[in-house]
Protein backbone atom coordinates (compact mmCIF):
# COMPACT_ATOMS: atom_id res chain seq x y z
CA UNK A 1 0.00 0.00 0.00
CA UNK A 2 1.46 3.33 -1.01
CA UNK A 3 1.45 6.52 1.02
CA UNK A 4 -1.52 8.08 -0.78
CA UNK A 5 -3.74 5.05 -0.21
CA UNK A 6 -2.67 4.78 3.38
CA UNK A 7 -3.57 8.42 4.06
CA UNK A 8 -6.87 8.02 2.25
CA UNK A 9 -7.85 4.93 4.23
CA UNK A 10 -6.89 6.65 7.48
CA UNK A 11 -8.98 9.72 6.69
CA UNK A 12 -11.88 7.52 5.57
CA UNK A 13 -11.89 5.80 8.94
CA UNK A 14 -11.55 9.16 10.65
CA UNK A 15 -14.53 10.56 8.73
CA UNK A 16 -16.52 7.41 9.49
CA UNK A 17 -15.60 7.72 13.15
CA UNK A 18 -16.66 11.37 13.26
CA UNK A 19 -20.00 10.56 11.59
CA UNK A 20 -20.66 7.64 13.92
CA UNK A 21 -19.62 9.60 17.02
CA UNK A 22 -21.87 12.60 16.24
CA UNK A 23 -24.65 10.21 15.31
CA UNK A 24 -24.31 8.24 18.52
CA UNK A 25 -24.00 11.33 20.67
CA UNK A 26 -27.07 12.95 19.14
CA UNK A 27 -29.02 9.68 19.16
CA UNK A 28 -28.85 9.66 22.95
CA UNK A 29 -30.40 13.13 22.87
CA UNK A 30 -32.95 12.42 20.15
CA UNK A 31 -36.47 11.73 21.20
CA UNK A 32 -38.35 9.33 18.94
CA UNK A 33 -42.03 10.10 19.18
CA UNK A 34 -41.73 12.92 21.69
CA UNK A 35 -39.43 15.05 19.54
CA UNK A 36 -40.90 18.50 19.06
CA UNK A 37 -42.26 18.53 15.53
CA UNK A 38 -45.27 20.80 15.71
CA UNK A 39 -45.59 24.54 16.25
CA UNK A 40 -48.29 25.89 18.52
CA UNK A 41 -49.48 29.19 19.99
CA UNK A 42 -49.70 29.56 23.74
CA UNK A 43 -53.07 31.35 24.01
CA UNK A 44 -52.11 32.85 27.36
CA UNK A 45 -49.10 34.57 25.84
CA UNK A 46 -50.76 35.71 22.60
CA UNK A 47 -51.37 39.46 22.26
CA UNK A 48 -53.48 39.20 19.08
CA UNK A 49 -51.16 41.50 17.14
CA UNK A 50 -52.45 40.22 13.82
CA UNK A 51 -49.14 38.97 12.44
CA UNK A 52 -50.36 35.35 12.39
CA UNK A 53 -52.66 36.32 9.56
CA UNK A 54 -49.98 38.03 7.49
CA UNK A 55 -46.70 36.23 8.16
CA UNK A 56 -47.56 32.54 7.64
CA UNK A 57 -45.94 31.02 4.54
CA UNK A 58 -49.38 29.90 3.40
CA UNK A 59 -51.52 32.36 1.46
CA UNK A 60 -54.31 31.82 3.96
CA UNK A 61 -52.65 31.38 7.34
CA UNK A 62 -52.73 28.03 9.13
CA UNK A 63 -53.67 29.95 12.27
CA UNK A 64 -57.36 29.75 13.07
CA UNK A 65 -59.60 30.97 15.81
CA UNK A 66 -60.72 28.23 18.18
CA UNK A 67 -63.65 28.44 20.56
CA UNK A 68 -63.70 26.95 24.05
CA UNK A 69 -67.44 26.56 24.63
CA UNK A 70 -66.92 25.61 28.27
CA UNK A 71 -65.31 28.99 28.96
CA UNK A 72 -67.80 31.03 26.93
CA UNK A 73 -70.48 33.09 28.66
CA UNK A 74 -72.93 32.63 25.75
CA UNK A 75 -73.69 36.36 25.92
CA UNK A 76 -75.97 38.20 23.53
CA UNK A 77 -73.62 41.19 23.42
CA UNK A 78 -70.44 39.36 22.50
CA UNK A 79 -67.16 41.25 22.29
CA UNK A 80 -65.85 38.84 19.69
CA UNK A 81 -68.99 38.86 17.56
CA UNK A 82 -69.96 42.53 17.53
CA UNK A 83 -67.76 45.51 16.93
CA UNK A 84 -67.46 47.86 19.88
CA UNK A 85 -70.24 50.47 20.20
CA UNK A 86 -72.66 48.95 17.72
CA UNK A 87 -75.98 50.74 17.54
CA UNK A 88 -78.18 47.74 17.01
CA UNK A 89 -77.51 44.13 17.84
CA UNK A 90 -78.23 42.67 14.43
CA UNK A 91 -76.14 40.67 12.00
CA UNK A 92 -75.59 43.50 9.53
CA UNK A 93 -72.05 43.31 8.12
CA UNK A 94 -71.06 46.69 9.54
CA UNK A 95 -71.73 45.37 13.05
CA UNK A 96 -69.66 42.22 12.73
CA UNK A 97 -66.20 41.96 14.23
CA UNK A 98 -65.12 39.16 11.88
CA UNK A 99 -64.06 40.53 8.46
CA UNK A 100 -64.87 37.27 6.69
CA UNK A 101 -68.08 36.35 8.47
CA UNK A 102 -66.56 33.21 9.93
CA UNK A 103 -68.44 33.46 13.24
CA UNK A 104 -72.04 32.30 13.28
CA UNK A 105 -74.34 32.24 16.26
CA UNK A 106 -77.40 30.29 17.16
CA UNK A 107 -80.00 31.02 19.78
CA UNK A 108 -79.96 28.41 22.54
CA UNK A 109 -82.39 29.71 25.15
CA UNK A 110 -83.08 33.08 26.77
CA UNK A 111 -80.57 34.85 27.03
CA UNK A 112 -77.88 32.57 25.63
CA UNK A 113 -76.35 32.28 22.19
CA UNK A 114 -73.97 29.60 20.99
CA UNK A 115 -71.06 30.84 18.85
CA UNK A 116 -69.37 28.69 16.23
CA UNK A 117 -66.27 29.38 14.14
CA UNK A 118 -66.21 28.33 10.53
CA UNK A 119 -62.55 27.46 10.08
CA UNK A 120 -62.87 27.43 6.31
CA UNK A 121 -63.50 31.17 6.37
CA UNK A 122 -61.24 32.12 9.29
CA UNK A 123 -58.00 33.88 8.33
CA UNK A 124 -56.51 33.99 11.82
CA UNK A 125 -56.52 37.79 12.07
CA UNK A 126 -57.39 37.58 15.76
CA UNK A 127 -59.81 40.54 15.78
CA UNK A 128 -62.52 38.50 17.50
CA UNK A 129 -59.96 37.04 19.91
CA UNK A 130 -58.92 40.52 20.91
CA UNK A 131 -62.54 41.53 21.48
CA UNK A 132 -63.28 38.40 23.48
CA UNK A 133 -60.18 38.58 25.70
CA UNK A 134 -60.71 42.31 26.29
CA UNK A 135 -64.41 42.30 27.10
CA UNK A 136 -65.42 38.69 27.58
CA UNK A 137 -64.27 35.43 29.11
CA UNK A 138 -61.49 34.84 26.62
CA UNK A 139 -63.11 31.76 25.17
CA UNK A 140 -61.96 32.66 21.64
CA UNK A 141 -58.26 32.05 21.08
CA UNK A 142 -55.83 31.52 18.23
CA UNK A 143 -54.33 28.12 17.47
CA UNK A 144 -52.34 26.67 14.61
CA UNK A 145 -54.48 24.11 12.80
CA UNK A 146 -52.11 21.16 12.56
CA UNK A 147 -53.99 19.71 9.61
CA UNK A 148 -53.18 22.83 7.58
CA UNK A 149 -49.76 23.73 9.01
CA UNK A 150 -46.80 22.81 6.76
CA UNK A 151 -44.57 22.22 9.81
CA UNK A 152 -41.78 24.38 8.48
CA UNK A 153 -38.46 23.74 10.12
CA UNK A 154 -38.58 27.34 11.20
CA UNK A 155 -42.02 28.83 11.70
CA UNK A 156 -42.25 32.19 9.96
CA UNK A 157 -44.80 33.58 12.41
CA UNK A 158 -42.86 32.38 15.46
CA UNK A 159 -39.99 34.49 14.14
CA UNK A 160 -42.04 37.70 14.16
CA UNK A 161 -44.30 37.05 17.14
CA UNK A 162 -43.75 39.99 19.52
CA UNK A 163 -44.56 37.99 22.65
CA UNK A 164 -42.79 34.70 21.79
CA UNK A 165 -46.08 32.88 22.05
CA UNK A 166 -45.26 30.31 19.35
CA UNK A 167 -43.10 27.41 20.44
CA UNK A 168 -42.40 23.87 19.33
CA UNK A 169 -44.62 21.28 20.96
CA UNK A 170 -44.54 17.51 21.04
CA UNK A 171 -46.74 15.13 19.08
CA UNK A 172 -48.97 14.41 22.06
CA UNK A 173 -49.64 18.07 22.87
CA UNK A 174 -50.32 19.40 19.43
CA UNK A 175 -52.91 21.90 20.74
CA UNK A 176 -52.98 24.20 23.72
CA UNK A 177 -56.72 24.35 24.31
CA UNK A 178 -58.40 26.60 26.80
CA UNK A 179 -61.22 24.23 27.79
CA UNK A 180 -58.84 21.71 29.29
CA UNK A 181 -56.89 24.21 31.35
Amino acid at each position, binding site marked *: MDRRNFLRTCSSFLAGGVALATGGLL*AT*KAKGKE*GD*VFWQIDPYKCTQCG*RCETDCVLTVSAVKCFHANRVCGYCDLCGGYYRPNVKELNTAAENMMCPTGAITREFVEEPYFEYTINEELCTGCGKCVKGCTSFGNGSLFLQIDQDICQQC*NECAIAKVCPSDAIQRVSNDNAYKLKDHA
Partner: protein
Amino acid sequence: MMGIIYSLNTMAVARFPKPDFTSGYEYPEIIHGVPNELFWNVMDIVLLIAMMGLVVWAAYKKRGRSIILSMSVVSVLYFGFFRSGCVCSVGSIQNVVMATVDSDYNLPLYVLLLFLLPIIFALLFGRVFCSGVCPLGALQELVNVRNFRLSRAVSATLSMIPWGYLAFTILYAATRSQFLICRLDPFIGIFRLGGDIGVMSFGILLLIMSIFIGRPFCQFLCPYGALLSVFSSLSWKKLEITNKGCINCSLCGVACPVDAIRPPQSSKMKEERKRGVKRIILFAILLPVLTFTGAVLVGSQSDALSLAHKDVYLYEMLLRQEANPELDEPLEVETFNALGGNMEELKAKVDGIRSDYEFYSYFAGAFIGFVIGFKLLKLSLKRGRKTYEIDMARCTMCGKCFNYCPQNLKTSK
Protein backbone atom coordinates in the same frame (compact mmCIF):
# COMPACT_ATOMS: atom_id res chain seq x y z
CA MET B 1 -51.18 54.38 18.77
CA MET B 2 -52.95 54.79 22.07
CA GLY B 3 -55.62 52.77 23.65
CA ILE B 4 -54.58 49.29 22.69
CA ILE B 5 -55.70 47.11 25.49
CA TYR B 6 -53.75 44.01 26.26
CA SER B 7 -55.85 41.93 28.55
CA LEU B 8 -53.42 39.21 29.31
CA ASN B 9 -54.90 36.77 31.65
CA THR B 10 -52.60 34.24 33.15
CA MET B 11 -55.72 32.51 34.38
CA ALA B 12 -58.97 32.33 32.49
CA VAL B 13 -60.93 35.30 33.75
CA ALA B 14 -64.62 34.60 34.01
CA ARG B 15 -66.16 38.02 33.56
CA PHE B 16 -69.43 36.32 32.79
CA PRO B 17 -70.59 33.32 34.76
CA LYS B 18 -70.99 29.97 33.11
CA PRO B 19 -74.58 29.82 31.87
CA ASP B 20 -77.14 27.55 33.53
CA PHE B 21 -78.90 25.93 30.68
CA THR B 22 -82.43 24.75 31.40
CA SER B 23 -83.23 23.43 27.95
CA GLY B 24 -80.88 20.46 28.23
CA TYR B 25 -78.26 22.10 25.99
CA GLU B 26 -75.05 20.13 25.70
CA TYR B 27 -71.65 21.54 24.84
CA PRO B 28 -70.62 20.62 21.32
CA GLU B 29 -67.58 18.37 21.04
CA ILE B 30 -65.07 19.91 18.65
CA ILE B 31 -62.29 17.60 17.54
CA HIS B 32 -59.16 19.26 16.23
CA GLY B 33 -57.29 17.11 13.76
CA VAL B 34 -53.68 16.13 14.26
CA PRO B 35 -51.99 14.63 11.21
CA ASN B 36 -50.38 11.25 11.73
CA GLU B 37 -46.86 12.62 11.59
CA LEU B 38 -45.32 9.43 12.89
CA PHE B 39 -46.62 7.49 9.91
CA TRP B 40 -45.37 10.04 7.38
CA ASN B 41 -42.01 10.34 9.11
CA VAL B 42 -41.50 6.59 8.95
CA MET B 43 -42.63 6.71 5.32
CA ASP B 44 -40.08 9.46 4.57
CA ILE B 45 -37.20 7.52 6.10
CA VAL B 46 -38.19 4.27 4.37
CA LEU B 47 -38.44 6.04 1.02
CA LEU B 48 -35.16 7.87 1.62
CA ILE B 49 -33.31 4.60 2.21
CA ALA B 50 -35.08 2.79 -0.62
CA MET B 51 -34.43 5.55 -3.13
CA MET B 52 -30.79 5.92 -2.15
CA GLY B 53 -30.42 2.14 -2.42
CA LEU B 54 -31.94 2.18 -5.89
CA VAL B 55 -29.60 4.96 -7.01
CA VAL B 56 -26.61 2.98 -5.73
CA TRP B 57 -27.80 -0.05 -7.67
CA ALA B 58 -28.44 2.02 -10.81
CA ALA B 59 -25.06 3.75 -10.65
CA TYR B 60 -22.80 0.91 -9.56
CA LYS B 61 -24.45 -2.18 -11.06
CA LYS B 62 -26.63 -1.08 -13.96
CA ARG B 63 -24.67 2.00 -15.04
CA GLY B 64 -27.83 3.61 -16.33
CA ARG B 65 -29.51 6.95 -16.04
CA SER B 66 -33.17 5.95 -16.43
CA ILE B 67 -33.64 4.77 -12.84
CA ILE B 68 -31.89 7.84 -11.47
CA LEU B 69 -34.12 10.04 -13.60
CA SER B 70 -37.28 8.29 -12.42
CA MET B 71 -36.06 8.66 -8.81
CA SER B 72 -35.75 12.39 -9.49
CA VAL B 73 -39.37 12.53 -10.62
CA VAL B 74 -40.50 10.58 -7.53
CA SER B 75 -38.44 12.85 -5.27
CA VAL B 76 -39.80 16.09 -6.72
CA LEU B 77 -43.37 14.78 -6.50
CA TYR B 78 -43.16 13.15 -3.07
CA PHE B 79 -40.54 15.03 -1.03
CA GLY B 80 -41.12 18.26 -2.93
CA PHE B 81 -44.75 18.79 -3.79
CA PHE B 82 -46.49 16.24 -1.55
CA ARG B 83 -44.45 16.65 1.66
CA SER B 84 -43.86 20.30 0.76
CA GLY B 85 -40.13 20.06 1.40
CA CYS B 86 -39.96 20.39 5.19
CA VAL B 87 -37.99 19.05 7.09
CA CYS B 88 -35.24 18.22 4.58
CA SER B 89 -31.74 16.85 5.03
CA VAL B 90 -30.21 20.17 3.98
CA GLY B 91 -32.10 22.05 6.65
CA SER B 92 -31.54 19.35 9.26
CA ILE B 93 -27.99 20.69 9.74
CA GLN B 94 -29.56 23.49 11.76
CA ASN B 95 -31.58 21.18 13.99
CA VAL B 96 -28.48 19.11 14.65
CA VAL B 97 -26.45 22.22 15.52
CA MET B 98 -29.23 23.43 17.78
CA ALA B 99 -29.43 20.06 19.53
CA THR B 100 -25.67 20.15 20.11
CA VAL B 101 -25.64 23.56 21.77
CA ASP B 102 -29.07 23.59 23.40
CA SER B 103 -29.90 20.73 25.74
CA ASP B 104 -33.53 21.89 25.97
CA TYR B 105 -34.18 21.33 22.31
CA ASN B 106 -35.81 17.97 21.60
CA LEU B 107 -34.30 16.73 18.38
CA PRO B 108 -36.75 14.36 16.73
CA LEU B 109 -35.10 11.04 15.84
CA TYR B 110 -36.56 11.42 12.36
CA VAL B 111 -34.62 14.65 11.77
CA LEU B 112 -31.42 13.06 13.05
CA LEU B 113 -31.88 10.21 10.57
CA LEU B 114 -32.53 12.69 7.75
CA PHE B 115 -29.20 14.27 8.62
CA LEU B 116 -27.15 11.08 9.09
CA LEU B 117 -28.39 8.67 6.42
CA PRO B 118 -27.15 10.68 3.40
CA ILE B 119 -23.78 11.13 5.15
CA ILE B 120 -23.49 7.39 5.78
CA PHE B 121 -24.38 6.70 2.14
CA ALA B 122 -21.82 9.32 1.05
CA LEU B 123 -19.15 7.56 3.09
CA LEU B 124 -20.00 4.25 1.43
CA PHE B 125 -20.89 5.18 -2.16
CA GLY B 126 -20.61 8.95 -2.70
CA ARG B 127 -23.23 11.65 -3.06
CA VAL B 128 -26.12 9.27 -3.68
CA PHE B 129 -28.51 11.62 -1.91
CA CYS B 130 -27.76 14.54 -4.23
CA SER B 131 -28.38 12.34 -7.26
CA GLY B 132 -32.11 11.79 -7.41
CA VAL B 133 -33.27 11.76 -3.80
CA CYS B 134 -32.84 15.38 -2.74
CA PRO B 135 -35.86 17.24 -4.17
CA LEU B 136 -33.80 20.40 -4.68
CA GLY B 137 -31.20 18.59 -6.76
CA ALA B 138 -33.79 16.52 -8.59
CA LEU B 139 -35.73 19.61 -9.65
CA GLN B 140 -32.61 21.11 -11.27
CA GLU B 141 -31.69 17.75 -12.79
CA LEU B 142 -35.03 17.48 -14.53
CA VAL B 143 -34.79 20.85 -16.27
CA ASN B 144 -31.11 20.61 -17.26
CA VAL B 145 -30.68 20.40 -21.03
CA ARG B 146 -27.37 22.01 -21.93
CA ASN B 147 -24.28 22.55 -19.91
CA PHE B 148 -22.16 25.54 -20.62
CA ARG B 149 -18.91 24.94 -18.83
CA LEU B 150 -17.65 27.61 -16.44
CA SER B 151 -13.90 28.09 -16.34
CA ARG B 152 -12.01 26.18 -13.63
CA ALA B 153 -11.05 29.39 -11.84
CA VAL B 154 -14.62 30.72 -11.73
CA SER B 155 -16.06 27.41 -10.62
CA ALA B 156 -13.36 26.94 -7.95
CA THR B 157 -14.06 30.41 -6.58
CA LEU B 158 -17.82 29.97 -6.64
CA SER B 159 -17.58 26.60 -4.93
CA MET B 160 -16.26 28.39 -1.83
CA ILE B 161 -19.71 29.95 -1.31
CA PRO B 162 -21.32 26.79 0.21
CA TRP B 163 -18.67 26.76 2.94
CA GLY B 164 -19.32 30.36 3.84
CA TYR B 165 -23.04 29.64 3.76
CA LEU B 166 -22.47 26.64 6.05
CA ALA B 167 -20.38 28.73 8.47
CA PHE B 168 -23.08 31.39 8.78
CA THR B 169 -25.80 28.76 9.02
CA ILE B 170 -24.00 27.22 12.00
CA LEU B 171 -23.45 30.67 13.51
CA TYR B 172 -27.14 31.57 13.29
CA ALA B 173 -28.39 28.14 14.38
CA ALA B 174 -25.97 27.88 17.32
CA THR B 175 -27.07 31.29 18.59
CA ARG B 176 -30.70 30.34 17.97
CA SER B 177 -31.25 33.39 15.80
CA GLN B 178 -32.72 31.99 12.64
CA PHE B 179 -32.60 29.09 10.25
CA LEU B 180 -30.74 30.64 7.34
CA ILE B 181 -31.10 27.63 5.03
CA CYS B 182 -34.86 27.52 5.48
CA ARG B 183 -35.22 31.25 5.00
CA LEU B 184 -33.20 31.28 1.78
CA ASP B 185 -34.34 27.93 0.36
CA PRO B 186 -34.88 28.91 -3.29
CA PHE B 187 -37.18 26.07 -4.30
CA ILE B 188 -39.51 25.71 -1.34
CA GLY B 189 -41.71 28.44 -2.81
CA ILE B 190 -42.06 26.40 -5.99
CA PHE B 191 -42.98 23.25 -4.04
CA ARG B 192 -45.54 25.15 -1.97
CA LEU B 193 -46.75 27.23 -4.90
CA GLY B 194 -46.32 30.41 -2.91
CA GLY B 195 -44.03 32.16 -0.52
CA ASP B 196 -41.69 35.09 -0.16
CA ILE B 197 -41.57 36.83 -3.54
CA GLY B 198 -37.85 37.70 -3.39
CA VAL B 199 -36.70 34.19 -2.52
CA MET B 200 -39.15 32.71 -5.03
CA SER B 201 -37.87 34.83 -7.91
CA PHE B 202 -34.33 33.87 -6.96
CA GLY B 203 -35.45 30.24 -7.11
CA ILE B 204 -36.99 30.70 -10.54
CA LEU B 205 -33.83 32.46 -11.74
CA LEU B 206 -31.76 29.53 -10.46
CA LEU B 207 -34.09 27.10 -12.18
CA ILE B 208 -33.73 28.97 -15.49
CA MET B 209 -29.96 28.94 -14.98
CA SER B 210 -29.98 25.21 -14.38
CA ILE B 211 -31.35 24.68 -17.88
CA PHE B 212 -27.93 25.82 -19.15
CA ILE B 213 -25.59 25.07 -16.24
CA GLY B 214 -25.74 21.76 -14.38
CA ARG B 215 -27.25 22.18 -10.90
CA PRO B 216 -26.11 25.69 -9.95
CA PHE B 217 -27.64 25.37 -6.46
CA CYS B 218 -25.89 22.06 -5.70
CA GLN B 219 -22.56 23.27 -7.06
CA PHE B 220 -22.35 26.81 -5.78
CA LEU B 221 -24.77 27.18 -2.87
CA CYS B 222 -25.83 24.01 -1.09
CA PRO B 223 -24.08 23.76 2.31
CA TYR B 224 -25.17 20.17 2.84
CA GLY B 225 -23.67 19.29 -0.55
CA ALA B 226 -20.36 20.77 0.65
CA LEU B 227 -20.54 18.61 3.76
CA LEU B 228 -21.39 15.52 1.69
CA SER B 229 -18.55 16.21 -0.74
CA VAL B 230 -16.01 15.78 2.08
CA PHE B 231 -17.43 12.40 3.05
CA SER B 232 -17.88 11.46 -0.58
CA SER B 233 -14.24 12.15 -1.47
CA LEU B 234 -13.31 9.61 1.21
CA SER B 235 -15.93 7.08 0.17
CA TRP B 236 -15.43 3.35 0.43
CA LYS B 237 -16.51 2.63 -3.17
CA LYS B 238 -15.46 4.74 -6.12
CA LEU B 239 -17.80 5.17 -9.04
CA GLU B 240 -16.39 4.05 -12.39
CA ILE B 241 -17.74 5.22 -15.70
CA THR B 242 -17.17 1.88 -17.34
CA ASN B 243 -15.87 -1.49 -16.29
CA LYS B 244 -14.73 -2.38 -19.82
CA GLY B 245 -11.67 -0.19 -19.84
CA CYS B 246 -11.47 3.52 -20.62
CA ILE B 247 -10.36 4.35 -24.17
CA ASN B 248 -9.81 8.04 -23.35
CA CYS B 249 -12.41 9.24 -25.84
CA SER B 250 -13.28 12.25 -23.63
CA LEU B 251 -17.03 11.94 -24.29
CA CYS B 252 -17.87 11.49 -20.60
CA GLY B 253 -16.06 14.69 -19.68
CA VAL B 254 -18.18 16.62 -22.16
CA ALA B 255 -21.37 15.06 -20.84
CA CYS B 256 -20.78 15.80 -17.17
CA PRO B 257 -22.97 18.71 -16.03
CA VAL B 258 -21.01 19.43 -12.83
CA ASP B 259 -17.47 19.16 -14.24
CA ALA B 260 -16.67 16.17 -12.04
CA ILE B 261 -14.72 14.16 -14.60
CA ARG B 262 -10.98 14.72 -14.61
CA PRO B 263 -9.07 14.13 -17.84
CA PRO B 264 -5.89 12.06 -17.87
CA GLN B 265 -2.69 13.95 -17.17
CA SER B 266 0.91 13.00 -16.64
CA SER B 267 2.26 13.14 -13.12
CA LYS B 268 5.41 14.81 -14.40
CA MET B 269 5.55 18.44 -13.41
CA LYS B 270 6.04 21.00 -16.15
CA GLU B 271 7.71 23.22 -13.61
CA GLU B 272 10.79 22.52 -11.55
CA ARG B 273 10.24 20.33 -8.52
CA LYS B 274 11.84 22.91 -6.27
CA ARG B 275 9.40 25.61 -7.34
CA GLY B 276 6.45 23.36 -6.70
CA VAL B 277 7.65 22.44 -3.25
CA LYS B 278 8.20 26.11 -2.46
CA ARG B 279 4.64 26.92 -3.48
CA ILE B 280 3.21 24.16 -1.30
CA ILE B 281 5.22 25.38 1.68
CA LEU B 282 3.94 28.92 1.01
CA PHE B 283 0.34 27.72 0.97
CA ALA B 284 0.95 25.63 4.09
CA ILE B 285 2.06 28.82 5.86
CA LEU B 286 -0.83 30.73 4.33
CA LEU B 287 -3.36 28.27 5.77
CA PRO B 288 -3.04 29.33 9.45
CA VAL B 289 -2.67 32.97 8.37
CA LEU B 290 -5.94 32.82 6.43
CA THR B 291 -7.63 31.01 9.31
CA PHE B 292 -6.56 33.73 11.71
CA THR B 293 -7.48 36.57 9.35
CA GLY B 294 -10.92 35.08 8.78
CA ALA B 295 -11.49 34.75 12.52
CA VAL B 296 -10.51 38.37 13.15
CA LEU B 297 -12.52 39.71 10.20
CA VAL B 298 -15.80 37.95 10.99
CA GLY B 299 -15.25 38.15 14.76
CA SER B 300 -14.99 41.93 14.60
CA GLN B 301 -18.43 42.05 12.99
CA SER B 302 -20.11 39.97 15.68
CA ASP B 303 -22.13 42.87 17.11
CA ALA B 304 -23.56 43.72 13.72
CA LEU B 305 -24.26 40.04 13.02
CA SER B 306 -26.03 39.63 16.35
CA LEU B 307 -28.84 41.92 15.11
CA ALA B 308 -30.22 38.81 13.39
CA HIS B 309 -31.34 37.67 16.83
CA LYS B 310 -34.85 38.77 17.70
CA ASP B 311 -34.01 39.84 21.27
CA VAL B 312 -30.94 41.84 20.26
CA TYR B 313 -32.98 43.59 17.59
CA LEU B 314 -35.72 44.34 20.11
CA TYR B 315 -33.15 45.75 22.52
CA GLU B 316 -31.75 48.03 19.81
CA MET B 317 -35.27 49.12 18.92
CA LEU B 318 -35.97 49.96 22.56
CA LEU B 319 -32.80 52.03 22.77
CA ARG B 320 -33.74 53.90 19.60
CA GLN B 321 -37.21 54.53 20.99
CA GLU B 322 -35.75 55.87 24.22
CA ALA B 323 -33.55 58.26 22.27
CA ASN B 324 -36.38 59.46 20.02
CA PRO B 325 -39.63 59.12 21.96
CA GLU B 326 -41.53 61.11 19.32
CA LEU B 327 -41.28 58.27 16.79
CA ASP B 328 -44.11 55.80 16.28
CA GLU B 329 -43.66 52.80 18.49
CA PRO B 330 -43.02 49.58 16.55
CA LEU B 331 -45.28 46.69 17.49
CA GLU B 332 -42.43 44.87 19.24
CA VAL B 333 -41.67 47.84 21.51
CA GLU B 334 -45.35 48.37 22.23
CA THR B 335 -45.80 44.73 23.19
CA PHE B 336 -42.66 44.73 25.30
CA ASN B 337 -43.90 47.73 27.28
CA ALA B 338 -47.48 46.49 27.51
CA LEU B 339 -46.29 43.17 28.92
CA GLY B 340 -44.23 45.01 31.52
CA GLY B 341 -40.91 43.87 30.04
CA ASN B 342 -37.86 44.47 32.20
CA MET B 343 -35.10 46.37 30.41
CA GLU B 344 -32.45 45.08 32.84
CA GLU B 345 -33.43 41.47 32.28
CA LEU B 346 -33.44 41.99 28.53
CA LYS B 347 -30.01 43.61 28.67
CA ALA B 348 -28.60 40.66 30.60
CA LYS B 349 -30.10 38.32 28.01
CA VAL B 350 -28.74 40.40 25.12
CA ASP B 351 -25.27 40.45 26.68
CA GLY B 352 -25.36 36.66 26.88
CA ILE B 353 -26.42 36.40 23.24
CA ARG B 354 -23.72 38.88 22.18
CA SER B 355 -20.98 36.90 23.91
CA ASP B 356 -22.29 33.74 22.20
CA TYR B 357 -22.11 35.63 18.93
CA GLU B 358 -18.56 36.71 19.58
CA PHE B 359 -17.46 33.12 20.14
CA TYR B 360 -19.30 31.67 17.17
CA SER B 361 -18.33 34.45 14.74
CA TYR B 362 -14.67 33.86 15.51
CA PHE B 363 -15.32 30.19 14.86
CA ALA B 364 -17.21 30.91 11.61
CA GLY B 365 -14.50 33.25 10.36
CA ALA B 366 -11.72 30.81 11.21
CA PHE B 367 -13.66 28.08 9.44
CA ILE B 368 -14.09 30.12 6.25
CA GLY B 369 -10.41 31.10 6.29
CA PHE B 370 -9.35 27.51 6.80
CA VAL B 371 -11.51 26.27 3.93
CA ILE B 372 -10.08 28.88 1.53
CA GLY B 373 -6.52 28.03 2.60
CA PHE B 374 -7.18 24.32 2.27
CA LYS B 375 -8.69 24.80 -1.19
CA LEU B 376 -5.59 26.71 -2.33
CA LEU B 377 -3.37 23.97 -0.99
CA LYS B 378 -5.44 21.32 -2.69
CA LEU B 379 -5.45 23.17 -6.02
CA SER B 380 -1.66 23.34 -5.98
CA LEU B 381 -1.30 19.58 -5.73
CA LYS B 382 -1.17 17.65 -8.96
CA ARG B 383 -1.81 13.99 -9.38
CA GLY B 384 -1.19 11.83 -12.40
CA ARG B 385 -4.05 9.97 -14.09
CA LYS B 386 -3.97 7.51 -16.95
CA THR B 387 -7.67 7.58 -17.81
CA TYR B 388 -10.75 9.72 -17.31
CA GLU B 389 -11.72 9.54 -13.64
CA ILE B 390 -14.63 10.71 -11.57
CA ASP B 391 -13.93 13.29 -8.88
CA MET B 392 -16.08 11.82 -6.11
CA ALA B 393 -16.28 15.11 -4.23
CA ARG B 394 -18.04 16.84 -7.12
CA CYS B 395 -19.96 13.98 -8.75
CA THR B 396 -23.67 14.19 -8.03
CA MET B 397 -24.33 10.84 -9.73
CA CYS B 398 -26.69 12.02 -12.43
CA GLY B 399 -25.58 9.08 -14.56
CA LYS B 400 -25.17 11.06 -17.79
CA CYS B 401 -21.63 9.84 -18.42
CA PHE B 402 -22.71 6.18 -18.47
CA ASN B 403 -24.83 6.66 -21.58
CA TYR B 404 -22.10 8.62 -23.36
CA CYS B 405 -19.34 6.05 -22.82
CA PRO B 406 -18.93 3.99 -26.02
CA GLN B 407 -17.48 1.12 -23.99
CA ASN B 408 -20.74 0.82 -22.04
CA LEU B 409 -22.73 0.52 -25.26
CA LYS B 410 -20.86 -2.65 -26.28
CA THR B 411 -22.96 -5.69 -25.59
CA SER B 412 -21.01 -7.97 -23.33
CA LYS B 413 -20.86 -11.51 -24.57
